[in-house]
């Protein structure tokens, strides 16, 4: 029985080793033991776009500030 188990393990290992030696260019099917090939990514030579200089980030705050200023103005008028 143990002979059969040992034989099965050896056969399985041999198959694994055989499988590892098969060269496969597809990076998805690369094995763990050989040097993994890096997937080929087409290199884009265009540099990243320059940073923008946005200004309209505080529009809501400005509208709120305008409303508050108007509120203050009419509040003062009512007190007078």
């Amino acid at each position, binding site marked *: 029985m143990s002979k059969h188990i040992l034989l099965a393990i050896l056969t399985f290992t041999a198959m694994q080793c055989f499988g590892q030696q098969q060269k496969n260019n597809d990076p998805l099917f690369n094995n763990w033991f050989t040097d993994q090939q890096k997937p080929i990514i087409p290199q884009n030579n265009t*540099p990243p*776009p*320059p*940073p*923008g*200089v*946005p*200004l*309209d*980030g*505080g*529009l809501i*705050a*400005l*509208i709120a*500030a*305008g*409303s508050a*200023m*108007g*509120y203050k*103005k*009419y*509040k003062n*008028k*009512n007190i007078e």
Partner: protein
Amino acid sequence: MNKNQSNSNFKKQLRSFGAAFSDKGFRDFIIRFLSTLFLLTIIYEAYLWFTEQQRELDWITYKVSELSHALATALGVANCEFSCFMDGCRIGVEGKMINVLEGCNGLMLALVYASYIVGSGGWKWSSLAQVIIGIIVVQFFNVLRIGMLVVLRDLGGDIYFFFIKYVFNVLIYISILFLWILKPYVDRFFEKPNEA
């Protein structure tokens, strides 16, 4: 101040705001302010849509970029380049450029400023004069901001990001608040010839 006190203060403020809204003057101001802003935004967005259909860059972004480029060149940025595309303009030295997009032209801020002036003073000649002066002031600060950013980017260092994110933005917003604060004095200046 404990939590209950701050809550009651907030409620008091909210109640007084509600009371102010029942005041006709304030209500008219808010309606005029927001409706003018809405109207001007629609006109501006329609203009942007039109230029997009023409596959062109809007005139304001182009002019702001052009003036900023001229300012940066005057401030001593050597080999300062300037190129415009459909989405915006690129200014600066090769490899250290900045991108001036539609959101960078400062016009939305100018529209909020103009809406406040109209909301506060109504449709009058003095309001129109203040709107024109205000837009020129806002655009002046914006051109100064972009020109200085080109210079800072050319000089290098991380300080550029601090300026781009905080300093110049705060400067423009403060200039608008300052113009709003000055409004009653400008109104008085316009009213004087009428009284005489």
